[in-house]
């Protein structure tokens, strides 16, 4: 076995994959393994965090530290773990329902918090684990087992929402553009602060509208000359959805991260290595005398 092959295998998990054949998740799994390999990451440096859903199973299918928590609640433990141990590369994988529905509040406020993590949303515009109900990104009027008269709620635009909330890195990928996706992931992981990639992926079992073909016919990569530092332009680009769907980095700027703002911890070891004895707190009794 060559060194390269060995390296590739280091991220392979023995856990049995339970996704449907042809699921877009396979492409995302391959992309993340490739991205981590190309970034020279080691499994023990990585913490994969997820909520619940088909996407949220991904951490089990890659060798890394794993925190597979509650539905909608991937972000809170992910950012906390990063705050406690900044040396960990923390990556959240969860679906559109998990992130934008159940976890909507955490999505908005962790953008504000700007902890240095990467957040990859597997956006198939449907609830798949529960067998095909509308998600926050399902098209208006789309018929499902529950939305029997068509989806009554208009879809939200995650790219615009993230930009409006103040995210410093916002991108969209597509499972049909593997190399492009790998590059996006590498950029997102390397970006200091919260980085979102909304990844368009087909659900072969439950979304018969937004198929691989549907996406493939519409997506186009943002051109090289597109500048990623202009918020108004990014918002304008983010509004584009329908006949043509842009993918790529909409916006990327440097902002102070949550850890940058913890000035009082700057010269201290990470919280995970904090050395403390009960007597160290005795001084706080002074003001109570």
């Amino acid at each position: 076995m060559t060194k390269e092959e060995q390296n590739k295998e280091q991220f392979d998990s023995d856990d049995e994959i339970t996704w449907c054949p042809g699921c877009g998740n396979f492409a995302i799994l391959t992309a993340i393994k490739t991205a981590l390999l190309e970034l020279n990451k080691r499994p023990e440096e990585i913490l994969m965090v997820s909520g619940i859903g088909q996407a949220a199973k991904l951490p089990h299918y890659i060798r890394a530290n794993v925190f597979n928590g509650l539905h909608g609640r991937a972000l809170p433990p992910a950012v906390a773990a990063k705050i406690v141990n900044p040396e960990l590369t923390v990556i959240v994988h969860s679906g559109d329902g998990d992130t934008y529905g159940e976890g909507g509040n955490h999505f908005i406020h962790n953008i504000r918090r700007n902890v240095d993590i990467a957040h990859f949303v597997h956006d198939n515009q449907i609830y798949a684990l529960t067998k095909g109900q509308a998600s926050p990104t399902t098209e208006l009027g789309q018929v499902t087992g529950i939305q029997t008269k068509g989806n009554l709620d208009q879809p939200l635009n995650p790219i615009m929402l993230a930009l409006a909330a103040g995210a410093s890195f916002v991108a969209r990928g597509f499972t049909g553009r593997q190399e492009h996706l790998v590059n996006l992931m590498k950029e997102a992981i390397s970006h200091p602060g919260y980085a979102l990639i909304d990844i368009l992926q087909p659900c072969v079992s439950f979304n018969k509208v937004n198929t691989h073909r549907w996406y493939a016919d519409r997506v186009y990569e943002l051109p090289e000359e597109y500048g990623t530092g202009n918020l108004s332009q990014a918002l304008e680009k983010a509004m584009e959805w329908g006949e043509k769907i842009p993918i790529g980095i909409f916006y990327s700027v440097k902002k102070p991260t949550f850890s940058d703002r913890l000035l009082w911890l700057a010269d201290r070891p990470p919280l995970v290595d904090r050395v403390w004895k009960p007597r160290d707190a005795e001084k706080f009794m002074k003001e109570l005398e």
Partner: protein
Amino acid sequence: MDFNILVGGAAGQGVDTVAKVLELIMKKQGVEVFSHKDYMSRVRGGHNFHQIRFADRPIYSHSETLDVILALDSTTVKVHSSRLSAQGVLVCDESNRTEISRGKTLWLPLKEKAVEAGSKLTEGTIAAGAVLRLFDFDFEKVWPVLHSLFKTEIFEVNRRALEIGYTLTEPQFKLEFPESQPRIMITGNQAIGLGALAAGVSFYSGYPMTPSTGIMTYLASKMEEAGIVVEQAEDEIAAINMAIGASYAGARAMTATSGGGFCLMVEGLGLAAMTETPLVIAEIQRPGPVTGFPTRTEQADLSFVLTASQGEFPRMVTALRDPEDAFYQTARAFNIADKFQIPVILLGDQYLGDYYQTIPPLDFSALTIERALAGEEVWKQPDHYQRYKLTEDGISPRLVPGRCGTQLVIVDSDEHTEDGHITEAADVRIAMTKKRMQRLELLKQEAQEPWFFGQTDPEILLLAWGSIAGPMREAIERLQEDYSIGALIFGDIYPLPTKLLTTLQPNVTMLINVEQNATGQLAALIRQEALIACTHSILRYDGRPMSGQYILDRVKEAISSDKRRTE
């Protein structure tokens, strides 16, 4: 010597400041202080009051009888003057002249003198000066306290106000100073925060909710000096999930809330249990359901926290009995959470959280930090580390991600294999359920027996938990002069320690549960866990704390009605 002063007024009138001035001055003169705050859920107006009790011996609760009322508004006069003792004094501004049935009234020109001192905002300070003179407090010892309370800009005007106030009255009460002992003055919420700091908490995430916010405020004030992170989460769901993530990553983590916030945390509680992540949660109760009485006290969340979250898993529930107990039990909770890899719930209430009490200095050298993390012997093994390895006692060696060589730490909210991966296998489910529940048996050995006050082998036994400890102690001190009576006050409440109770029970003719709730939740737990039923109940659920006198009166009523029944 045992005096009780009430300071009352509307929110925004400076009631808190006046109370603080009096509390601190008394504390600095070496008397024991117990100060309880009764406030409404509003920023302006309404009726708020502090009851500051001070004595030359340790005191454990507020008292019903008042020696002095310092009224900054007419409502205070109307609501409280009937509680004034025969020798009591009511101090208030001339403009609030109302007839009262008891005690003596001092209508003073407080408002006028405040303007004379330089600011009409000093009315309360004028009144505080008048009250200090009633007790003939040594004026020279007052200045350092005043310096610590007022910023430079307003120090001078308040000094003048206090001096003017001091000239308005004559001494009425005789002070007896105890032999000066070192004392600190602390609230339950501060004690929880300080206990957590001593235990090495380094990550606290919470969402403000009365009456638990004091814990977060206290920790936030020490954030820089202690080198920790205190983060206000977007909601309680985030708060508990963040704390769990921090704990998973190796920090000692904590969150706190009140009942309503705990409702939102319930799924997270199950997550801590399922992933076997140590977690300390303080639940500072207020009357519910839902918004209830936001600023008042109750003990009605016991049944809720005992069974909160779906499924079955071990948890520990400890009720905090007074600030000193809150400090030691909070520090202990972190060790228990780490040792058994479980969530530990600390139950407080508004009464305990907010009252100030003078207590002996806390003993930090008595505390230890026991992380119970596995070492190199586990992570240097060639085999892959298994987070949920089946062991004899149900406790798997715990490692922290990124701090165990090339090993990986895999945790899951799904039912999982020893590796931490999702499974639906029946045999694994049985093994994992047994493994989780096994630790409940170990916890039973960890549980501490309740405090006992009173006579040995009493015929009347009172059962209580949490913050009733102080009032109960005062009630028993007096009741035991006339009756064969004792009280058990539960701190550790789940798993329920039953040895002491079952030892005393055969001799008992009246078994009375005393609780701040409407249904007798401790009594229900005791029926369930010890198959012992209480014969009588003393329950209070109007949002107001029981005093020693209140318990004493109710116990006497119960005894006399019991006698009538048996005669």
